């Protein structure tokens, strides 16, 4: 005898069965307008007292997530950051620490 599975109604309004067959996007264009998937578990945090604004973190970021702000200090866009912690490793002054995102 096969076990009977309980059917649970989901409370989320937008589930997989609301998408089109095969998860095909019917709109024309590229991936640009969509937000990338999940956010990283580890996130770079700058200590502005130690940072000398040299830009090494910006140079070595493979995801082009780090950008210069108006004040000259660098910031990571957490939509694009994947948490590889290259910037933390390459910073000469130890200004970047990897923190768990809340």
């Amino acid at each position, binding site marked *: 005898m096969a076990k009977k599975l309980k059917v649970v109604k989901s409370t989320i309004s937008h589930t997989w069965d609301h998408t089109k067959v095969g998860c095909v996007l019917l709109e024309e264009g*590229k*991936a*640009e307008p*969509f937000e*990338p998937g999940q956010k*990283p578990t580890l996130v770079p945090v700058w200590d502005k007292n130690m940072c000398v*604004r*040299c*830009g*090494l973190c*910006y*140079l*070595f*970021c*493979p*995801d*082009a*997530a780090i*950008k*210069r702000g108006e004040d000259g200090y660098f910031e990571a*866009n957490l939509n*694009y950051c*994947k*948490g*590889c*912690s*290259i910037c*933390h*490793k*390459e910073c000469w002054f130890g200004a970047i620490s990897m923190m768990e995102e809340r």
Partner: protein
Amino acid sequence: MDKFALYVPQLLPFKEHFLPEAHRACMGCGVALGVRQVYKALEEKREWMKGARWEIPYKQPLPGNLTKSEQEGKEGLRPALLQIDKGNQTHLFLCFDNEAVEGKYSPKVFKKAHPAVAVARGFHYVATACPSYPFDLIDKVRRGMESEGNSYLHILSPCPVGWGFESELTINIGRYAVECALYPLYEVVLGSYRLTIDHPKLRPVEQYLSMQKRFAHFKQKEISALQVEVGKIYDKLRAGKM
């Protein structure tokens, strides 16, 4: 390297043509980093292709699609060479090498045949580069664009998943590969070799191999044999021969 005598990343253009929205690389990817740095170099030099997401024509060969001789690098330049024969235009070819095609990781991995083939086919400018040395790479791309004939760049791109190391070590691994002379950075202008980054004292090969899981099966005998071979090749390069 004249323009980049100072190690100042802020002198580079801040505009990104390599857009992060669309690329699906793993974290700490060497290829993504290499491509991004190449874009920095090409900033003013070319009219950007509209439509393509990476804004530059590219081909991604999968290991299964290649013949055995292509995998060993003897005929790996075939698409490039076919493209050359078509017209009078000159091209800059970039090869991002993450050493994944070789299959078994044997000492063969370190023999880069592509640059030698390119030199033999009469490319005007041939060079090897690594994203761990960004200003060297950017300089080489610019020289390749300026050269009158065809040019070829071989770019080592460390792969954290394939090679078996932590994603934060991507830059370090590239540096180690150059410092222990398994991947020497040189350029070939009209057939004459020149080392662009020359370390007076080389790092032992074992340090580089022990950082990665893919060389876990290497025995001490193989490592010492590899060390001797590397020394010979590097001495040749220093003398300007190959």
